[in-house]
């Protein structure tokens, strides 16, 4: 059974600080996705990482993928309150089927 584990599950950080969310997965995959979910809302796509060593950045968020270690990271730089949300990683198998992590609930406090 494929497992996707995120840590931490809950993260409270001060504005201006840096932090990293980790996503480990248990089987070979070369596609990894990061989504954001605001309370009561649906999932919004942040990044699609398609190959080993892929790095993508958008604003204060940067995602990377190491397929050999089966690890992706989502790095937050100089956090601001607007980044408060739940972040999910997902791995695709056979292209079509996604397996999601349990999510990391991020709260940025002033």
């Amino acid at each position, binding site marked *: 059974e494929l497992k*996707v584990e995120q840590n931490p599950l809950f993260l409270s950080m001060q504005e201006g600080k840096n932090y990293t969310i980790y996503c480990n997965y248990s089987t070979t995959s070369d596609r990894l996705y990061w989504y954001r979910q605001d309370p009561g809302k*649906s999932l919004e796509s942040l990044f699609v990482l*398609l190959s080993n060593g892929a790095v993508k950045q958008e604003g204060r968020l940067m995602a990377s993928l190491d397929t050999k270690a089966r690890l992706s990271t989502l790095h937050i730089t100089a956090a601001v309150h607007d980044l408060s949300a739940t972040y999910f990683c997902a791995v695709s198998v056979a292209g079509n*089927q996604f397996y*999601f*992590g349990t999510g990391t609930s991020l709260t940025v406090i002033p």
Partner: protein
Amino acid sequence: DVKVTQSSRYLVKRTGEKVFLECVQDMDHENMFWYRQDPGLGLRLIYFSYDVKMKEKGDIPEGYSVSREKKERFSLILESASTNQTSMYLCASSFYGETYEQYFGPGTRLTVT
């Protein structure tokens, strides 16, 4: 922009009722998915479909069925709703391409009493 819509944002049903959740996408995507989301469990795949009239079981299909009669529409059916099916239901669609990225609808919060 890809648009995935779901028939209801909130739904309250009684135990034993038959429940229909509908999802429509407007981007001619081949693949459609139904997930349920529960606190601490993330998203779990119920069923998916890669073509009209085709369906595949996901990880938790028990108690659910699906229907895809038209490419743009994917319905999730709870034959006899139970309280343990109270959840947030999310529909998604994707196309065959480089990324297989899934686009999500707004979700339906279903409460079964």
